[in-house]
């Protein structure tokens, strides 16, 4: 055999070898397991979480709304006392800073889409399937730029509110969509997209419809108790399952956020700024077992004791489904009267309110 022929054979062998792909399971819109919640704040990990022993438990708290009715909410404090908790979107001279998108499939944010294609004769097998393959979970997006809001808990300015981007599944295989990066380029799906900024290597991004959804991403490992403080017969809680950047996420969906948009005139020739803010309900909590100067304190927060009273937006009912509902609560503390904690906003003596610390709690009530 001459040298050239031998080299040719060798080259062919090497080419064959070099073509091997060790990650067969990671082709296309792959799946990489649950999101790493190591850096999640405690409230998103759940009570009792111990990285070396126990998973956390996330339990809801009851609260009263106007008329004395009781609602159940899942409370997540905003990391620092600030009205920036309310800021959702800022636009100045064409530059927009917005919440990260949540891609909501087939129109109804309160439940996973059933319009996708399930495998033939599919029957959900909880033991086999990590998610139902006759549903499509909603998809959250990773931050696209440094000024974007974080999409996962763990950053100090995390806000569990996302900009809704409607997606039509058009019969795509259920729960085959695991990431925004593939979603926006998936030819089977229908959605409005915005091209990436010129000069960037980013993907297009879904175009929000202007609505905002509260969705608290909790530790996927956590045990989340339902409104009765229990689990269903399968051991599952009320959290829903979606995807973030090829990872599985668990979240509690708190409904649409009412908003208010204002335009602030620019000073000294600066362009006007248009700000969209969440509208918050008022949450009154008794100050008897907590420090009203630090009502969000991790170890003894003022809220979530079962004695919270919620006054909805515009003093309407703060129950989910009512016009006054918002998943954002402005926390105020008060000194209860002789009859004990109030069970209706009208029972609170406003003169006993403690100084407002601009503290906010994301008070998510789940859809019934």
């Amino acid at each position, binding site marked *: 055999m001459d040298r050239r022929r031998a080299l040719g054979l060798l080259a062919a062998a*090497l080419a064959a070898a070099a073509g091997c792909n060790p990650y067969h399971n990671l082709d296309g819109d792959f799946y*990489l397991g649950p999101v790493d919640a190591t850096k999640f704040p405690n409230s998103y990990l759940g009570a009792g979480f*111990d990285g070396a*022993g126990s998973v956390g438990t996330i339990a809801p708290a009851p609260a009263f709304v106007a008329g004395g009715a009781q609602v159940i909410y899942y409370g997540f404090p905003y990391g620092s006392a600030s009205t920036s908790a309310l800021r959702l979107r800022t636009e100045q001279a064409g530059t927009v800073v917005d919440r990260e998108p949540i891609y909501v499939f087939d129109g109804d944010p309160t439940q996973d889409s059933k319009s996708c294609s399930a495998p033939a004769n599919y029957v959900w097998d909880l*033991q086999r399937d990590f998610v139902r393959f006759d549903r499509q979970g909603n998809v959250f997006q990773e931050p696209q730029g440094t000024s974007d809001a974080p999409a996962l808990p763990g950053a100090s300015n995390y806000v569990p509110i996302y900009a809704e981007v409607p997606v039509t599944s058009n019969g795509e295989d259920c729960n085959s969509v695991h*990431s925004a990066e593939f979603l926006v380029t998936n030819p089977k799906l229908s959605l409005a997209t915005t091209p990436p900024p010129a000069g960037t290597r980013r993907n297009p991004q879904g175009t929000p419809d202007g609505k905002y959804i509260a969705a608290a991403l909790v530790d996927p490992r956590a045990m989340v108790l339902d409104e009765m403080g229990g689990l269903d017969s399968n051991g599952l809680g009320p959290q829903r399952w979606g995807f973030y*950047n090829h*990872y599985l996420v668990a979240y509690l969906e708190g409904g649409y956020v009412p908003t208010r948009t204002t335009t602030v005139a620019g000073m000294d020739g600066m362009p006007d700024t248009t700000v969209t803010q969440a509208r918050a309900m008022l949450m009154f909590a008794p100050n008897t077992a907590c420090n009203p100067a630090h009502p969000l304190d991790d170890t003894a927060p003022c809220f979530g004791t079962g004695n919270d009273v919620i006054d909805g937006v515009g003093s309407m009912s703060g129950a989910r489904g009512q016009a006054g509902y918002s998943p954002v609560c402005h926390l105020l503390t008060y000194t209860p009267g002789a009859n004990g904690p109030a069970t209706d906003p009208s029972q609170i003596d406003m003169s006993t309110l403690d100084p407002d610390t601009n503290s906010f709690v994301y008070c998510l009530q789940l859809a019934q």
Partner: protein
Amino acid sequence: MKRTHVLSILIALLLIPSVAFAVGETNGRIGGTVTEAQSGAPVPGATVEASGKALIGSARSVTTDDGGRYELAELPPGTYDITISYAGVKPVRRRVNVRQGELAPLDIVWSAELTEAEVTVVVEERHLTKPDSTQTGTVISLDTSSKVATQREYQDIALQVAGTVDVNGGGNPQIKGGNLMMNRYLVDGLDITDPVTNTFSANINFDSISSIDVITGGMEAQYNSLGGIINLITAAGSDEWHVDSSLYIGNDLFSVHGQYGSQSFHGVVPLSKIPSASTQSYQANINVGGPIVKHKLWFNASVEYDYTEAGTPAGPPLNVQGPPRRFNGVLARLKLSWAPNEKHRITLSVSTDPSFISNTGGSNTRLPVAQSYQEQGGAFGILQWDWFISQKANFNLQTGFVYNHIYSGSQGYFSGIDNTGAASMFSSKNAQYNFNEPLQQNQIDGSIWYQGAAANQYDRRYRFQFDPSISLRGRAAGTHDAKIGIQLQYLADEFAVQPTGGGVEYIDGGANGAPLEAGLCNEATGTGGCFLKVVQQGYLQTFRGLSVGGYLQDRWKPHRRVTIVPGIRFDYGWSQDSAGRTATNLFGVGPRLGFIFDLTGDEKTILSMFYGRANDVQNMLPAGFGSPTPITNEYLWNPMTNKFDTKVGAFGGSQGVIYDPTVHEPPHTDEVTASIRREVFRNSVATVDYTYKRISNMWDWYEINRIWDPSGYRQLTDVNGNPLYANPALPQDIYKITTNHPAIREYQGVDFSIESRPTDHWDIYVAYTLAWLYGQAGEEFGGQVNGTSGPFFNPRQTVLWDGYLPEDVRHQLKVRASYNTHGFNVGTFIVFQTGAPLSHEYFQFTDGGYQNLRGPTGTDPGASPNNAHGFAEFRTPDLLEVDVRASYDFHALIKQHLIVLLDMFNLFNLRTPNGIEATDLPTFGQVTSRQQPFRFQLGLRYLY
């Protein structure tokens, strides 16, 4: 934790030094043609006679056929003088070196001038191109291996061959995509592979080995291995008396000491006051061989004694210097060779290898009282009968038995503990061994306390083999060299478990956890990092298996330049667990087909191509894993009651394992090999081998009763924490043993090698391997080799079991070279290999073990764990080891072969980490072990 328990058993099983159908090719051949020089016409009827020191009985002779062809078959490896004679013509003489399993080609072009000129023996060793074989690998003789510094173990020699690695460091090579449980180890044709773990089961005196044939691929039908074949031929006696005695001393003073930092980027700690553990070795050998009855009955007797100490530098989490691993072993062997007449040759041999190993647990996570111990050994006997029926037919029988045992457990139970210094830094519990003190694992830092093992284990294994075969040579559309054989084996295992610590083991690291002993759980007071309590009982298992294999292979030469090697084998295997259930019942067909082309017509340029399938029908692991055990229960600490009163897991029991009734596909390897071999100059061959191998349907088990939450990090429970199961009536783990799964191993590799003995002074082997190994199946039964949980334990994790496999070593360079002159010899063995994959393993809340992945196998998610495109390959550092031997034979001065030797290991004292903490502990990424330091040993050898 369940997995940890099961894995600990298997890991212990693996520690035995080790089935299958594999008759061993113990002989070689000489063959060629005799032609007339002027006309090129074949010379029929010439007599070709072979005689040599390795050949007992009379010289063997054949006559050339009508085409001038001849073949001298079944020659024991060695050097032969060949005499080609023809009536009325002066004979021609040659000298040929025969290697086991190979053809030594010898063509004679006969002329009147040649016979007139023949006055001396011409040395002829041009046999390295293997002109009628598709098999890859090589043969290493005692002569070659004695010129370089080695650990003097056959497993170590096997690692000198291209395509072999040992990323686990346990002495079981991983050969071209196979794992450490896929090789076959043969001694004089007896399969000494461990019946259960398929690892090596026996050690053998190094000096009693005359040659080692390492077959890495392209195997003939007589072999059946998913990995490689390591075929040892032991020394026989001869008509001359020989003595080979030697002493090797590697005192601790001959070793570099020092402590090293805990990170992989750290070097020596110059001012460390921690004394180093000793690293030393001593070995004494004596081998005697000779005739009992000249030409008729020979013997060879051999005894070897080994003592070694291997220390590990102190490191986290204990940061105290632990005692070294100590090995004490005696190897003894006797072989008799009998040739009652020229038609029969019988060899009988027996071997034994008792050994005792202390401090086997690694020294950085255990104080001496928590060290583990191992006692192992056994015996095997072999009877081999060659019946030379005629020039065209011979019969061979290889039969024998193997017994071995391994007893392992807590060092303090089996032997004394070496508590020098270390225990004083901790509580008095560490000063003295107490059998009733439960083992505690602190998950905070990975430290292990009070016991070396949660249970002592006693394992005895047996094998009986009966392999008759017939070889036939003849002509039909060319020449044929066919072999047909049957291989019968019976295997059995007795396995007993004796829990320590009253059958209790604690896994600590709960809410009140802390590092080291301070974090251990005190159940009585409810203090410490109480998390999980495991309660187990002792048991005894016996399981057995039977297998039958039949093969037919041919070496058909339809044309002078073409050899076709077709073959097929049929294998059937059955095994039964200790409950009397049939564990395996499999049949496999393994076709083989090879084509070999002599491209230049002179047997100097050979192209071979091969496809073959090997089936593993005889695996005893299913019966071992399926044999019932008492139920082991796990209880979670309840901080409300301060008790372990929440039962969170159970496994074992009579219903804990089931066998998949739909299994019909045995584990198998499909292999394609292409090789080019070229004799580049005298006695020197350059080879390029390409191998593609796909290993499918390996034995594994699925857990089928747990219900995991969607994340796969905890088992679903009711609101009170009671685990939920698919079958609520049987609230425990249930495993299904099966081969019906999609996980595979894929290997692609190219070996470039040069093997050369250009003169008597030089002996050179250089090999570079470029290889990829990937897939979903790390090891049988769930990645037990690397302590991970495997793809089928937790269905939520299955998707991540995909990537580079633990034995994926991308680049390997091996150089074995020696030069000798006037009694001086300098030899070196150099190996460089790139790092092997590790997987970052995360805490899994149900079992309290670190079993979950967050990226594909062989990766680490990195500092931004939620970046799906950010995971990086996670590997051990690249390793370079240079060993050198220098020796001088005083024969020229004293007329006796008295040889002094100096062996230097790790010449550059590279202390590269070869172990990295892969679990998600605070010590993640830190060094758990390093290369042994530079050390030398002195040797004295006497040969008579």
